């Protein structure tokens, strides 16, 4: 096991690398946002099972999303994105010629300003029901990275890699130093107000021990959140994205499934219908630890210069 390998890059046996000799296969989430209906059952189930306190009942006033983002008290977060999406049909002006007055009624009737109608998007099915407007919904969660920034920097050992390959905080150890909060390239983990410790998704570590799936996946009514062995999920996700593209959803893409990405692949990855930043996700996250040897080299040079300066001020010309 080389150190470089542990810090960055592809790592197939993440639990083994962390010292688990015999361990179950790595598990994860595949969140297929194309079938998310924004019911937030995952948020509720997570809060109930893990006894996560509320974080106020404020309305954010931007969409149906009043959770905002993941945090110490939100381990699942459903994002709602409202988008105009031109369908690309063309106006040949035929409508005017076919109308009763050949266009003479222009300006006398109502004009479609492109405002969203009162009808729910997707209320009608079939091609004629499509509007130039879409809702994207996505349930975000801790990514349980292969190379987890939070885990790398934790100075107490409170954060650890479980035998399932997930990343969990031991609440009896955490002393609330807050380093993990700044080390997460996804902005997931946070310190809980009034508690002082860092909290995040545990992928229901307790349920996994009992052979149960995590609460959010269990509660998801459309199976947008799928839980299982990571290898299996990656395969399934690949099939799903190919199916969607074949059906004309050209924007479908996987996010976080690539074991060669900046965090060595996510334990929880996603199928998205737009660019990641639209969902509040970083487009190309990299674990800060990747640059650790380089950063220490610069620090070493600065330390030597500091020492050399201190020596030289006593050595050179005493008379000054």
């Amino acid at each position: 096991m080389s150190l470089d390998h542990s810090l960055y890059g592809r790592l197939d046996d993440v639990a083994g690398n962390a010292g688990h000799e015999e361990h179950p296969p790595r598990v994860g989430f595949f969140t297929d946002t194309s079938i998310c209906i924004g019911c937030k059952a995952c948020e509720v189930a997570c809060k109930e099972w893990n006894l996560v306190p509320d974080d106020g009942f404020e309305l954010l006033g931007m969409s149906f999303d009043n959770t905002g983002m993941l945090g110490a008290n939100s381990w699942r977060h459903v994002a709602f994105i409202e988008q105009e999406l031109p369908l690309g049909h063309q106006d040949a002006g035929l409508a005017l010629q076919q109308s009763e007055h050949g266009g003479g009624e222009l300006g006398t009737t109502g004009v479609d300003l492109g405002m969203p109608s009162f009808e729910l998007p997707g209320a009608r099915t079939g091609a004629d029901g499509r509007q130039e407007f879409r809702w994207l919904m996505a349930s975000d969660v801790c990514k349980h990275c292969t190379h987890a920034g939070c885990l790398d920097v934790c100075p107490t050992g409170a954060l650890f890699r479980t035998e399932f390959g997930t990343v969990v905080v031991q609440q009896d150890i955490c002393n609330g130093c807050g380093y993990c909060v700044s080390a997460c390239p996804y902005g997931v983990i946070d310190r809980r107000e009034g508690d002082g410790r860092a909290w995040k998704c545990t992928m229901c570590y307790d349920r996994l021990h009992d052979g149960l799936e995590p609460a959010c996946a269990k509660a998801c009514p459309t199976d947008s959140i799928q839980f299982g062995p990571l290898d299996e999920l990656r395969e399934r996700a690949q099939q799903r994205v190919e199916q969607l593209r074949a059906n004309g959803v050209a924007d479908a893409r996987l996010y976080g499934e690539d074991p060669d990405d900046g965090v060595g692949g996510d334990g929880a990855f996603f199928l998205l219908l737009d660019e990641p930043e639209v969902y509040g996700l970083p487009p190309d996250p990299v674990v800060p630890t990747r640059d650790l040897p380089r950063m220490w080299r610069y620090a070493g040079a600065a330390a030597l210069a500091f020492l050399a300066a201190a020596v030289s001020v006593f050595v050179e010309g005493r008379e000054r």
Partner: protein
Amino acid sequence: MTRPWSPREKASDDGSRERSMVPRAQFRSYYGRPVLKPPVWKDYVAYYFFLGGLSAGSSLLAAGADQRGQPALRKGTRIAALGSIGLGSYYLIRDLGRPERFHHMLRVAKPTSPMSVGTWILTAYVPGIGIAAVSELLPRRLRATPLGRLVSALARPAGLASAALAPAVASYTAVLLSQTAVPAWHESHEELPFIFTASAAASAGGLGMMVAPPEQAAPARRFAAYGAIVELAASRRLETRLGLVGEPFLTGEAHRYLQRASTLTVAGVVGSMLLGRRSRVAAVASGAALLAGGLYERLGLLHAGTASTKDPKYVVEPQRQRIEERSAVQRQRQRELVQRIPPDPGRDEIDEGRGHRDH
């Protein structure tokens, strides 16, 4: 891999679906909300960075003064080195979410965590400077006791040991800030260690000028001057090198702190150079300016990092650019591959030869 076409992206003039290399006018985000969590660290951490650096520089000056026989400089810097690391540790613990659990840091030694590395550096550093400082503080009647004689005898080696660790104390904090996803801290990892150690030298030099009479403070003045020059040069490089991610250093509260830091540092060094040798009052004033400059420097760096997490553009735009560059390289490779397909068997050998050279 070609990127899936999205309706927001305009096809280029030649009719292809390749995107132009002009950066997009506006980045996209989730209702403008931040991608990252702002650091939870309060100003206490900046106080610690300042005090830790001050202590490191002071213990170096103390060791030098000890070797050179400058007792006033030695005494003042030893006591200050212990006092500042003590106060710094207090702030460090105060900043924890669960201060009563500070000793959990000592459960593990973790090379991937600069905070863990720093904990052990401090643990090794403090006893040495502690003995050296206590030897200066011992009342005369205790000095004659066996314990007092032991402390006095150990003072020099203990002081040297702490001086040997001082460069690590002053520089590890830069790695601590840089090993985060915070754009302004991570991207400035080349300059931060130099700013931290240089600022530590300037602060310790300032302190030396305050505690020692001018005739003994020459090393302190030089230390401060070296530190100030490197600090200003490294800060300047940081601000110009980083582009968009350098913006948080040049705007808002962080900028005000950093401006104050450089003004005070320049004033302190110029004051000590012109008047520090002649007037004790001027030396003390210059030293105080240098200390204040060091504190503002750390506050500025801390706040710049926080600002860079609050606007998603500092996260999304550089990452987007990285993706664009990668796919541009890929497209270039594909183009080369297409060109390399030999038109006739005769050229096969030549192309193979070129391929080998590339590998």
